């Protein structure tokens, strides 16, 4: 009986602490962000490293030219079709699906890093 009470208290505690948070959350999105912070969210450094690795491994890219500040088409000599391929490769690396509207805007390492770092589902 004492054990049962102890277990119940333990189960109830996290629920009670969560409820006020959930009701305060203004939108679905911030709720997602709240959940994503439970598991270890990617650090900025990790995002930068992995984005640069994906870009460097792209066949047409000279890896020595790749820095967080490069523009895919202006600095790396890629065209808009390559740009699509790189963004698709980033989607796979971080297990995301980037909608067309967003994907069209990502044309540099910096924008890719920002988008992925701010994405709650990036893994």
């Amino acid at each position: 009986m004492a054990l049962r009470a102890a277990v119940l208290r333990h189960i109830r505690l996290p629920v009670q602490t969560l409820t006020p948070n959930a009701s305060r959350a203004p939108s679905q999105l911030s709720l997602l962000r709240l959940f994503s912070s439970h598991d270890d969210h990617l650090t900025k450094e990790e995002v930068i490293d992995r984005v640069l690795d994906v870009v460097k491994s792209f066949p047409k890219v000279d890896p020595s030219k790749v820095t967080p500040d490069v523009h895919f088409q202006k600095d790396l000599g890629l065209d808009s079709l390559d740009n699509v391929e790189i963004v698709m490769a980033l989607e796979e690396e971080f297990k995301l699906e980037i909608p067309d509207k967003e994907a069209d805007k990502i044309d540099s390492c910096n924008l890719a890093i920002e988008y992925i770092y701010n994405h709650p589902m990036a893994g």
Partner: protein
Amino acid sequence: MGASKGQKLSGMQRQVLSLYRGFLRAARLKPTEDRRQIESIVSAEFRRNSKQVDRKNFLYIEYLLRRGKKQLDQLKSPDTIGLSSCNVSSSKKKC
């Protein structure tokens, strides 16, 4: 059509890139070996057209977009395992 160099994209260019993205997404759902083959055929076809088709030839580009969308729908079917079963290849023959 001329692959663009970072300037603002026209609506038609966005449609082409969106179609290309659609093909690459559909290819992901196929077994690895088929996927590589599909990707190389699709990529070659888009690049060939981007060099050969005049960027002002809107009617022809619209035709290619329509044809591409139909082919993409075919590719999306789980029964389609490769592009040998549709006419995306650079030749225009039906197969």
